[in-house]
């Protein structure tokens, strides 16, 4: 029996920051990990995909840089080498996290954690034998989620989910992407940039349906026209079958075929084997562990953060919640989890989004104004040859408060952080408009768009007054 103040189950982007924060606050901390330190994000998610996308993006630009007066000759890529670089980056980060945990005095247990009671957790190894029994004050469940592959999809080596796709050392010549969500669209763009023939199939009426229509239109147009991706929406892919050389399915009457298929239609929480019932923790119908505003489960000393609690499935949301949970356990003052979580999509072009969308405002019948500024009118974007896309503010018409921001285009994932800061601080469009932005930069677009919300944009032709 080992005793700890705080035990964290899962060492992903939610779990390890929670462990470190708890240790910083003076607690004795254990962290239990059944696979690799760093979880999905570091090993099979954010980091490896962005490593590959860095290569595919540059390769794509090399092939399309004639307009910049450049010629890279006949550019080529080596997917095996790309994949190896990905493994190197992941390895380096993983050992970095390990060092941080060790440096903070967090004890790492390799194995599967399972509640034996409210404050007792058994850790078992891969062989099923108990490694150790932990007695803990508080517990943070950070077990994350895994790809859902429904039963109607045949089990075959040609049909993979994101984790298995990343293990490939050879890129398929053609690819069906099942699911037009964030993960699907990112893989589709990456593969297409490297010359793979890609078809995206989305059952809903459009890809990335929660985004505003103008943002979606910009991305979809680019995916179809610039990257040659076929985007099929509004119907499910039926009769999915895996043959010797191809995977196929029916989209309505049309047969869709490719060398491989990646399934990216959703993720489910990882709670199997956790022994939640032994601790008296409730799950909802979908299997997630519901929590209150402070990330507490139905058991007061047990917290759940990140994907497993059914909130926003993003690494940085998990990190924020993990730190909050650790502070709530050890701090004097309770803090609610942050509600404003920006999201970033590493497609080509990139998308960044935070806060209220125009369509959500419409559904809630809120009185809003919109300020939009196109990269086509931005000096730096033109100079860089990256003039597709725009940024947009959603503004409260009554108080001028910034409620939402959306960016699509080059560097959108970096640009969105300024917007998140502004919205969290409850700034007004007027103030962002008055904030001096460096010239020439992409960030200037936010300033211009804020002016646009007041109809006072400097670098856009005035709208014709209809009065």
């Amino acid at each position, binding site marked *: 029996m080992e005793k700890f103040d705080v035990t964290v189950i899962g060492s992903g982007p939610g779990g390890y920051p929670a462990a470190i924060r708890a240790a910083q606050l003076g607690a004795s901390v254990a962290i239990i990990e059944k696979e690799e330190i760093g979880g999905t994000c570091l090993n099979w998610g954010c980091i490896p995909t962005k490593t590959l996308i860095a290569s595919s993006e540059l390769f794509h630009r090399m092939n399309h840089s004639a307009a910049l007066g450049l010629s890279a000759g006949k550019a080529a890529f080596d997917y095996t080498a790309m994949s190896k670089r990905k493994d190197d980056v992941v390895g380096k980060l993983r050992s970095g996290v390990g060092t941080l945990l060790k440096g903070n005095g967090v004890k790492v247990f390799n194995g599967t954690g399972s509640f034996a009671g409210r404050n007792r957790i058994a850790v078992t190894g891969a062989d099923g034998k108990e490694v150790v029994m932990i007695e803990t004050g508080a517990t943070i469940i950070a077990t994350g989620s895994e790809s859902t592959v429904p039963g109607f999809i045949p089990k075959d080596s040609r049909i993979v989910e994101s984790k298995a796709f990343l293990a490939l050392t050879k890129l398929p010549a053609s690819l069906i992407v099942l699911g037009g969500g964030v993960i699907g669209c990112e893989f589709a763009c990456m593969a297409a940039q490297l010359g793979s023939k890609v078809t995206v199939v989305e059952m809903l009426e459009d890809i990335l349906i929660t985004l505003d229509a103008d943002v979606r239109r910009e991305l979809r147009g680019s995916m179809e026209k610039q990257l040659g991706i076929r985007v099929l929406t509004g119907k499910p892919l039926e009769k999915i079958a895996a043959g010797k050389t191809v995977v196929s399915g029916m989209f309505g009457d049309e047969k869709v075929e490719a060398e491989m298929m990646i399934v990216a239609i959703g993720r489910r929480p990882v709670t199997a084997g956790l022994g939640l019932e032994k601790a008296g923790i409730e799950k909802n119908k979908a299997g997630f562990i519901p929590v209150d505003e402070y990330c507490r489960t139905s058991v007061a000393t047990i917290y759940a953060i990140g994907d497993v609690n059914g909130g926003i499935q993003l690494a940085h949301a998990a990190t924020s919640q993990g730190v909050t949970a650790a502070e709530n356990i050890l701090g004097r003052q309770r803090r609610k989890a942050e509600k404003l979580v920006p999201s970033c999509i590493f497609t080509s072009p990139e998308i960044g989004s935070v806060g209220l969308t125009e369509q959500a405002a419409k559904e809630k019948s809120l009185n809003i104004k919109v300020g939009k500024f196109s990269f086509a009118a931005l000096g730096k974007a033109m100079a860089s040859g990256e003039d597709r896309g725009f940024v947009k503010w959603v503004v409260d018409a009554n*108080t*001028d*408060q910034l409620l939402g921001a959306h960016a699509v285009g080059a560097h959108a994932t970096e640009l969105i952080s300024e917007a998140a800061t502004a919205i969290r601080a*409850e700034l007004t469009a007027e103030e962002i408009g008055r904030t001096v932005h460096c010239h020439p930069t992409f960030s200037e677009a936010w300033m211009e768009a804020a002016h646009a919300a007041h109809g006072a944009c400097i670098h856009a032709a005035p709208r014709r007054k209809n009065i």
Partner: protein
Amino acid sequence: MAQILILPKLGQTMEEGAIIKWHKKEGDPVKKGDIVFEIETDKAALEVESFFEGTLLKIVVKEGITVPVNTPVGYVGTPGEKIPDAPPPVPKVEAPKQAAQKVEAKKADAGSPAVQSLSVPVAKAVPAAARVAEVPSRLFISPRAKALVKKCVINPFSIRGSGPDGRIVEKDVQAYLDAQGYGKLKISPAAKKLAAKEGLDILKIKGTGDAGRIMIHDVERAVAEKPKVMSKMRQVIARRLTESFMNIPHFYVSVSVDMTDLMVFRQELKNSGKSYTVTDFILEAVTLSILEFPVVNSYTDGVSVSLRNSVQLGMAVSVPEGLVVPVIRNAETLSMQEIHDVQQVLAGKAREGKLLPDEMTGSTFTVSNMGMLDVDNFNAIINPGESAILAVASTKPVPAVHGGQVKVRQIMKLTLSVDHRVVDGAVGAAFANSVKTKLEDIELWKSLT
């Protein structure tokens, strides 16, 4: 010739009313019997139907404005028709915002027409609304000081002026801000903007953001908590209850009524096709008891007492905006069936907001029935102009002694509130027991139904 829509006089006591909503716009067709507008008096909100057919040509009295009865409020006719030039009588008051608050407060203070006939000695109570709108008529403040106050989103009325005649100058505002720790105040820009728009004082708002920063939701909470002027009906209720509770020395007496047999009898009646509510039995029992104890059906000003020789039975009915008390006229002359019928009609009208002011005045004794609200017991406040009120609680199965044994019986508590100046404890007790005895006497009900 265009027809004139007037503000109708909907009761003997009605002198003026406020138009709270126009159901038609100018240019809308109007048919006979269409509801054209809604008015609010001290007593209730009422819908007004058109007696004319045509098009609503013009709205003269806009929503929110109070005018005397018989004032033209609009014109109905055929489009293009000429509307009389004569300007309508000047509306008594503009209603929006602060002005409305003052007006309503003043009106309520002037004594409601509802209690006119009873000449209750009215305590000069300041209605709550007046305090809400309480703004010094003039503030002596320099333009620079005023600008600073505006910029800081604070209320200048607690600032001490050091200028001539106590005029507030910029220096005073600055000193006030320093004393209040304004410099340490953190507020998000959007929150400040909203506070300014809503006319709030940010020094009065508690921040819940990081390090006590005032965030938009803090201001939204303050906006939601901002004092709002109560409806006219609510103000009248408030004033009359205060007046009664402060001037009448209340005395209470409670009895438990065994309703078991009556409930069985009522069911039997129902099965034979005669439906009565529990309220009907209570009203009848009260009416009969009043005839035995006329003093509970009186009114005193502390010097003289007037004993009424008829029973004007008020019944309190809760409605969404408050409480109304329709009156069953001359209850002592009505049969049980008639009481039932009148009661049903009045209660229905009350719930639909269709009671006329005249149907709510002149009660001499009131019954307040909370039986349907699952309460064990409560004390009611005497209606001004009366000397007693009977509070009826829920009928509940409880262990009770019956025939020398403890049994589960259907027990209902009655609490009588009396004006102790005119009704003594013994009389109150006897009256309450009289009602109790009647309700428990099935032979009586057999003869009455």
